[in-house]
């Protein structure tokens, strides 16, 4: 598929949704019944400024060319679409890995932070804040702030700081200030709360680079559009390799949902392409130690978005669990809530053990050490049978360097 040459169209496609799209965002900022902007008035000016400008800015030719250039020369895009021959033989189907792990900083997260830092600059912001769980988004944010010379403050749960020491060091080397989130359960959800509070306290000069397709509208749509470069590449890469415009399946792990949103994006409305979303079941979906949000969640509000989230009957948010810090989030982006509710995507839950085994298998079979998040996506081949001629694209969202300690402890390496 050739790239859109019409520069009046924002990244990711038309802004007018026209009522035909069933699965993408509508003009009110909702995916079906999910989404919206449930924010305190203190955040309204910031979020509204972004809402009014993001599509306009994304459609500016110089914005697009700067974004494309950085993705190419700095991030290293396009990321390869790799035919995993041995993995395919093992599972008797055609498996392609979309190699987001080869991006600069080691994951898909940088596609979004490049886009948002350019957005922040166009909006005249001087100070960047972000939340991070595993530290991947924090590193990707610190990286683009270093690149653009903007001040960077990353909120990270106190517990995650202890779990992810190498990424904390990376952020510091890149010039970011890492502030521990000491409230609540001191993990990703609380780091997000702290980032939002910082934004309330700094309403003029600060941009909040959110790390997934979560948060108030327009964040889920904006992040999905920046990540949509992934599915755009899959289209032409698949054509080159398979002579096909579309795969039969796309598989991605879902924490907040950004790598999945990116891999699905151009295929959302094309129901020939089956979408599979893989959630972290932790010690088991019903073990009480799980992050399988769609199955365990109920409709509610988290971080400014109406979506599915894990909560008590009383509406208090429940702390999830997964061995993978990047999937350890009690909510899910509103797009995914909608894909779940409508049945557009099939949701599969994968336990810690299943993911760890699948990760190790990829190391041995293909010589690729995946992030534990991505290992969740790889684990579905043990659960689900595909036809021999099915083309299955798996989003290999990140590399496993950051997870070495967890791999070492788990496998007693």
């Amino acid at each position, binding site marked *: 598929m050739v790239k859109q040459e019409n520069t009046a169209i924002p990244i990711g496609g038309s802004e007018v949704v026209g009522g035909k799209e069933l699965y993408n965002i509508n003009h009110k900022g909702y995916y079906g019944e999910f989404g*919206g902007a449930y924010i*305190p008035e203190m955040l309204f000016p910031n979020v509204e400024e972004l809402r009014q400008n993001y599509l306009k800015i994304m459609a500016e030719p110089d914005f697009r060319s700067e974004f494309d250039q950085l993705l190419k020369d700095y991030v290293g895009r396009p990321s390869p679409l790799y035919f995993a021959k041995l993995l395919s033989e093992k599972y008797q189907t055609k498996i392609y890995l979309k190699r987001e792990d080869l991006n600069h900083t080691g994951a898909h997260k940088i596609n979004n932070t490049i886009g948002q830092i350019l957005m922040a600059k166009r909006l005249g912001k001087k100070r960047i804040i972000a939340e991070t769980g595993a530290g991947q988004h924090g590193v990707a944010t610190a990286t683009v702030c270093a690149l653009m010379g903007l001040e960077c403050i990353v909120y990270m749960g106190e517990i995650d700081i202890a779990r992810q020491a190498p990424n904390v060091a990376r952020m510091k080397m890149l010039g970011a200030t890492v502030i521990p989130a000491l*409230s609540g359960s001191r993990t990703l959800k609380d780091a997000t709360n702290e980032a939002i509070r910082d934004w309330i*306290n700094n309403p003029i000069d600060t941009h909040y680079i959110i790390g997934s397709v979560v948060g108030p509208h327009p964040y889920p749509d904006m992040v999905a559009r920046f990540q949509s470069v992934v599915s755009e590449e899959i289209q032409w890469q698949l054509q080159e390799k398979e002579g096909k415009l579309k795969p039969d399946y796309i598989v991605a792990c879902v924490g907040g949902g950004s790598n999945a949103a990116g891999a699905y994006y151009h295929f959302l409305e094309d129901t020939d392409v089956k979408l599979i979303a893989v959630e972290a079941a932790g010690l088991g979906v019903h073990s009480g130690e799980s992050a399988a949000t769609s199955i365990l969640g109920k409709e509610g*509000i988290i971080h400014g978005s109406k979506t599915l989230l894990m909560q008590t009957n009383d*509406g208090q948010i429940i702390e999830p669990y997964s061995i993978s810090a990047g999937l350890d989030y009690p909510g899910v982006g509103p797009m995914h809530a909608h894909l779940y509710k409508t049945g557009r995507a099939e949701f599969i839950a994968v336990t810690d053990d299943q993911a760890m085994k699948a990760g190790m298998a990829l190391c041995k079979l293909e010589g690729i050490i995946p992030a534990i998040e991505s290992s969740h996506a790889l684990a579905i081949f043990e659960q689900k049978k595909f036809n021999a001629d099915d083309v299955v694209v798996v989003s290999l969202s990140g590399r496993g360097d950051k997870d070495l300690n967890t791999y070492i402890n788990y496998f007693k390496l």
Partner: protein
Amino acid sequence: MNRIISKLQEDKKLLSIYFTAGYPNLNDTSTIIQNLERSGVDMIEIGLPFSDPLADGSTIQVSSTQALKNGMTTERLFEQLKDIRKSVSIPLIIMGYFNPILQYGVEAFCKKCSEIGIDGLIIPDLPVNVYFDQYKIIFEKYGLINVFLITPQTSNERIEFIDSISNGFIYMVSSASVTGSQSGFGSKQSNYFKRISNMQLKNPQIVGFGISNNKTFLQATQYTKGAIIGSAFIKHLTEKGVDTIDTFVKSIVK
């Protein structure tokens, strides 16, 4: 007439106090309310605790976490409040984040509030437009006043819209911050209070966030109808308990 409306007609500066229900102890709710009324407070905001209070600073966060640990739930709060109107006559407002209310059911929640004699709600993360499109009808059916916030960054146009759909008072957030900041008020705040006062809105304004003593109370109410104290009162409860509420209130309105 709604108690908030009649209170606003009194010819005085109003003091409203926020506390987190279930803190310091689970069953302090009615004692705190009664002591506040006895001490001369004009209005009370009963905080329904939430696990993730986005707009609150550390004092209210900690009190909310503790209240939930103590076992506070929506149902339990309603249970504690069910006879409150036998002993208390000042306006009572429930302040809470939207998710717990959504889980209870917005209509069921409003109905319960009206049965108890709650006069209004403050739901910081229920956006004005969503309220207007979906919930205004329900609030009105149960005679509840929904109080909206404005901040120094809110545009005049938006303030006018908020004023047009409000029917009680406007909650003026004193500065760009979460609750509990203690930096005091300077010319920036008084200019803002003055600017809003000059807009001649139909609803009176009550200032909240950052009021902690007699000085800030007087500054906040120079151009407005009243002031709301939250974090400073919770600190008092933490340090001195529920028996010396009178001392706290007297230190604010001398």
